């Protein structure tokens, strides 16, 4: 049977134990179709990157599945009908991860600030004054990443 990973986001105003119950329910739907849930992970209440149905936070859960395709159709339907589920994503994977996923290993917020690329986007401030003033953070000069050499030569 193929492997799948399924992540869903539950409404923030339900409790952790209710999330547990949801996971239980989804597990049962998968098992009813002859599939297996090899792992389930609860990532906790995380802040969403943008609002979904007026919510700023959500309970994230991950399920690792080893199930036939029909089970996925059913799971899909159940998740869509359930109003506590804000969003879900199921992807097929070549192999299921064993042990905790990155979400669990790297602290609660997987958000630290690594060194990023790209200072400013080109479309910022096109026509009219730039919104929000100078970009904050990232003291790196933008010239470092830009295609500078060509212009430099042309100027001489």
């Amino acid at each position, binding site marked *: 049977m193929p492997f799948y990973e399924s992540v869903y986001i539950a409404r923030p105003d339900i409790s952790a134990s209710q999330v547990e119950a949801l996971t239980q329910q989804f597990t049962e739907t998968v098992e009813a179709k002859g599939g297996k849930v090899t792992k389930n992970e609860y990532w906790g209440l995380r802040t969403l990157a943008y609002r979904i149905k007026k919510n700023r936070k959500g309970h994230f859960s991950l399920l690792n599945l080893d199930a036939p395709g029909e089970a996925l159709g059913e799971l899909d339907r159940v998740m869509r009908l359930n109003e506590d589920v804000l969003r879900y994503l199921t992807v097929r994977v070549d192999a299921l991860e064993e042990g905790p996923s990155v979400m669990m290993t*790297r602290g609660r917020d997987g958000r*630290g600030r690594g060194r990023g690329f790209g200072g*400013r986007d080109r479309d910022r401030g096109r026509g009219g004054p730039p919104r929000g003033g100078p970009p904050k*953070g990232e003291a790196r000069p933008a010239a470092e990443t830009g295609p500078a050499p060509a212009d430099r030569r042309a100027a001489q």
Partner: protein
Amino acid sequence: MSRRPFLRRQKSCPFSGPHAPKIDYKDVRLLQRFVSERGKIVPRRITAVSTKKQRELARAIKRARNLALLPFLIR
């Protein structure tokens, strides 16, 4: 003035080699490095990611966006 003032160092793909990280839509910290301040995917001419890995990366970023792990745009 005839010599090029800047010698461009050959950059290598951050996702190839023995200790390369695996591209995963759940790894927000990793993906965030390849997204601009505004939330756009950074072109590979800047990040030096190989074509194949860039495709994989773009897919991962889009999945992460869908799950509200990454923003679609930052105002």
